[in-house]
């Protein structure tokens, strides 16, 4: 078949592009995987309804806001990189700024704290498990985002995979907060970030294989 014939073939009877389909797919995949992650957190890890009432509201708000900002910025950035020729652009600030602010707050907290208490602020009581549990909770969202990216047309596969991984990590962290008893900024700065970076690394390495089209 000559290229001109292919052009005629493609153009003839071309339907109006359905833009709603992608949005519906995304809504379905995100709500489905989010629900799965929540179910895992609620049943296997357990929620802490009583604890939430007693925790200091400002620290609680800070933690939820941190995870929410990173989730939203991560999802938007991951969507951009799943499209041909799009860049993260100014959205990168939505990722860098919350992390930088949390690190600044963590350093400030550590400087203010008496020396013997500092290690405790960083390690909390669940440091060893936290990053792995976040990665585990993120797993269904990770699968959903990879599936969504495959339905679009990423052209830089490692970067697209890494950002999809980061977005799933941030969503995982947000859901994990329903179980997590830690509120100290140094803890969040280190272990939450590590938890988000695990799926980021997985996405970076699997992206070129999973996202090819």
């Amino acid at each position: 078949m000559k290229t001109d014939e292919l052009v005629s073939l493609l153009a003839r009877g071309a339907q109006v592009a359905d833009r709603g389909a992608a949005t519906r797919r995304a809504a379905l995949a995100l709500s489905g995987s989010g629900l799965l992650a929540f179910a895992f957190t609620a049943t296997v890890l357990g929620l802490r309804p009583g604890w939430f009432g007693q925790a200091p509201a400002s620290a609680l708000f800070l933690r939820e806001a941190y995870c929410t900002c990173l989730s939203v910025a991560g999802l938007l950035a991951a969507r951009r990189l799943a499209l041909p020729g799009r860049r993260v652009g100014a959205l990168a600030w939505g990722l860098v700024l919350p992390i930088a602010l949390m690190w600044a707050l963590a350093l400030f907290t550590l400087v203010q704290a008496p020396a013997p208490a500092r290690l405790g602020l960083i390690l909390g009581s669940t440091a060893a498990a936290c990053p792995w549990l976040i990665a585990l909770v993120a797993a269904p969202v990770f699968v959903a985002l990879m599936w969504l990216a495959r339905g679009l047309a990423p052209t830089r596969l490692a970067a697209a995979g890494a950002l999809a991984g980061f977005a799933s990590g941030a969503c995982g962290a947000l859901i994990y907060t329903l179980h997590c008893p830690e509120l100290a900024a140094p803890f969040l700065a280190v272990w939450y970030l590590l938890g988000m970076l695990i799926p980021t690394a997985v996405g970076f390495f699997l992206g070129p294989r999973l996202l090819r089209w």
Partner: protein
Amino acid sequence: MQSSEERLRGLLIRGLAGDEAAYHVFLQDLSAHVRAFLRKRLSRLPDEVEDLVQETLLAVHNQRHTYDPQQPLTAWVYALARYKLVDLLRRRARRDLLHDPLDEESELLAVSDSEAGEAKRDLARLLDTLPERQRLPIVCVKLEGLSVAETARRTGISEASVKVGIHRGLKALAARLRTPR
């Protein structure tokens, strides 16, 4: 080139809204740009150019829903063409060719080459390898020019399935183009 960018972008946006004639002109003009772009970068593999032009056109068509009208068309097409080019080079494992500069995005719509070469793979023959529920809708709608409704009546496939068949069939065709001959 500013003028090509603006003109082609206008044609594509009209095409996406259902203007078949505009879309046809868009694809035809775009194929010349893509051909020139690829011919320059595949100077050592001239036989691959036309196949890759066709592959890129299929990608443009299949991924047209990922074009954001706010976005420069050049960047979008360039990303697709470059992806297909890198994909081909990777498949051929000709590492030495990767030294050719691949990052001249702004150039894509500045060059044009309407002299089509011969494609090595025959898309018509590849079309025959598709399952019937994809092949028939493509043959009826895309080659014979029947409407979706007529196709549904003639083949006994529902209208929704005709549309899905075309969509999936063209995607399958694109996937088959990538597999080594």
